């Protein structure tokens, strides 16, 4: 069943949903990256909740004009308008009042959503049972998706992607350094607004599949996931698009493969699974990598301290140090240094003395700044410089030659 769904063999409707979800995932992942890099991820939450009144008003308007009221294009147009109004309110509140952005986001999302709920109840009392399906916009409903709906989603997703490709350079610049972008003469405000416009487009397109409450997840989770794997913004965009698309594809296929698996939540959970994997396994920024790095560092410190203790003839009690020394073949089982151990210990002590000279000599100021008790002096100074320092240390003193 699952394989059938993955290879688009599960009938017309399921195939439509899977393709639509994949396209949506890619465009949401790519768009969300700029939002995330701009540190305004939760603005999407306000935008998505602000679509609800528009959907209801569009429905009522279409019914009043004698239409069906469930025309997807009409509903999406309505949602886009009210999301835009919400966005303008949000911008106005943060720019012209003392409210911080998070308070403005919360205010816009709750008020617009509350108003939308009022309109929903108004529609319910309009009777005629035609409102069936409007609630579907809250959590998405892919059952009964039509070819025309899928086409709207596909065109919307492709259009958003094209716009992002056109605007990616100015948006990256604004995301990383708005002051610099302004100094370069870029219209930062308008680029910000365009970025939000793209987010709005993704939200509107995604209403049908994942619904307005969960579309935020598609905009936030893939970029955060991608950020674990790379430090370059263009690759974050690429990876985020891939992660989003994959989550959309797998999630939609999974939900088609069994009953009672709602599409939107499954896509979000698949996306989160990618995130959790990245959080633990990513090289560099992942938790596992951080633990390994910490353990490697710990071993270096213990080995170094152990060698210095050996050189000065101090007893070693720390078990980890002893074990590390023994495993490296530097001490015997009874804690007495082997020949290599003695040689390495002497070298460690001499290096320490060399560092001492380096750190008291202003001429070596730059090198001295690199001293952390672990760095090999050969990686910092040339052989000639070390020889020079060795001359200043001199030979053994107090011994008749």
């Amino acid at each position, binding site marked *: 069943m699952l394989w059938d769904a993955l290879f688009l063999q599960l009938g017309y409707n399921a195939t439509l949903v899977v393709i639509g979800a994949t396209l949506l995932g890619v465009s949401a992942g790519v768009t969300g990256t700029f939002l995330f890099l701009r540190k305004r991820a939760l603005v999407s939450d306000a935008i998505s909740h602000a679509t609800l009144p528009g959907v209801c008003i569009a429905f009522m308007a279409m019914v009043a004009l004698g239409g069906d009221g469930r025309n997807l294009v009409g509903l999406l147009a309505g949602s886009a308008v009210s999301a835009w109004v919400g966005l303008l309110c949000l911008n106005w509140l943060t720019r012209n009042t*003392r409210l911080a952005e998070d308070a403005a986001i919360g205010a816009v999302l709750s008020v617009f959503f509350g*108003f939308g709920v009022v309109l*929903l109840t108004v529609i319910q009392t309009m009777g005629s049972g035609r409102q069936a399906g409007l609630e579907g916009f809250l959590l998405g409903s892919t059952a009964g998706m039509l070819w025309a709906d899928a086409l709207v989603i596909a065109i919307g997703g492709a259009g958003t992607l094209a716009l992002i490709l056109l605007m990616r350079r100015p948006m990256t610049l604004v995301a990383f350094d708005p002051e610099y972008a302004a100094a370069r003469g870029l219209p930062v405000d308008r680029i910000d607004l365009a970025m939000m416009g793209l987010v709005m487009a993704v939200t509107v397109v995604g209403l049908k599949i994942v619904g307005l409450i969960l579309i935020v997840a598609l905009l936030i989770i893939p970029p*955060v996931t991608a950020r674990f794997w790379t430090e370059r913004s263009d690759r974050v965009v690429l990876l985020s698009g891939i992660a989003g698309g994959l989550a959309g594809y797998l999630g939609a296929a999974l939900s088609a493969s069994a009953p009672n698996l709602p599409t939107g939540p499954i896509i979000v959970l698949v996306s989160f699974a990618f995130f959790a994997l990245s959080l633990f396994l990513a090289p560099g920024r992942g938790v596992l990598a951080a633990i390994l790095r910490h353990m490697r560092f710990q071993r270096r410190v213990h080995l170094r301290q152990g060698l210095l203790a050996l050189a000065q003839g101090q007893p070693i009690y720390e078990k980890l140090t002893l074990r590390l020394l023994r495993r490296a073949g530097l001490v015997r089982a009874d804690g007495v240094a082997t020949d290599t151990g003695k040689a390495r210990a002497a070298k460690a002590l001499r290096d320490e003395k060399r560092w001492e000279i380096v750190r008291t000599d202003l001429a070596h100021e730059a090198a001295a700044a690199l001293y952390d008790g672990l760095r090999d002096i050969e990686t910092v100074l040339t052989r000639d410089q070390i020889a020079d320092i060795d001359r200043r240390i001199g030979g053994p003193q107090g011994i008749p030659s």
Partner: protein
Amino acid sequence: MSGEEFVPLSLTPLLIGIFAAVACALPGNFLVLRRQALIGDAISHVVLPGIVVAFLISGVIAAWPMMLGAAGAAVVAVVLIEAIRRLGRIEPGAAMGVVFTTMFAGGVLLLEQTDTSTVHLDVEHALYGNLESLIWLDATGWASLWDAEALAGLPVELPRMFVTLIGVILFTWLLWRPLKLSTFDEGFARTVGIRTNLLGLALVIVAAIAAVAAFDAVGSIIVIAMFICPPAAARMMTNQLEGQVAWSVIFAVISAVSGYILAGYGPLWLGGADAVSAAGMIATTSGLILALAAIFGPCRTRTGAPSQA
């Protein structure tokens, strides 16, 4: 309107609405000032999985398991957000977005997977609440307020919300000085020996308790709206924290009362037949109040900001 009609049908929902609004607005003041306003949003989203899990474990739709489940989910969410933020070095907003959407999705999935069709538990209910249905059928008029027999038939949400409100007021009142200090100058608060981390966590937990109690009665929209809108509007009215809290309580009460009345009677005045969602209307009126405050409030601008940005 006569007492026979008002007391049984409107008094209890109105009181519950007011209590819920004030209980959320009080901690909301500090959350808004600490730029943690969206914690309320996150909590109200994760309440759903908490309630579903509580239902699955206990098997009944009862108040206490659900409150426990919701509070547990709120704590799990706060811990997860903090863990992801620190482990992954991700900005708090994005970490919050990851956690609450995932938990909400999990809640919806659980709800769909289990057979809850026989009980009154669905996403719409979680969002809008059922303020209108919290009527007091045993009441016959104002005299019922002194009638022990009728009082026994009060909807349980009313005393529960009242106790929550008292708890929130006590928390704010007892910890007023440390809260104020740590909100405005965390470094100084720490130097005079206030455990700011613990205090911050306590504030979030109190907010979560208020959110969960209010959520049970009025749905999550009011919770988010009341956490943010009245304090934000109050922020435009004054520069004093005391004044701000007072204004926020006033705004919360006004929006609860006017929202309830507009929802119940507004459509009738306009010639409609049925009432609209009271929860949604209360959120809407609180937004209108915020809009008015943002346009006319005496302290609406950022001090020191350029007048023409």
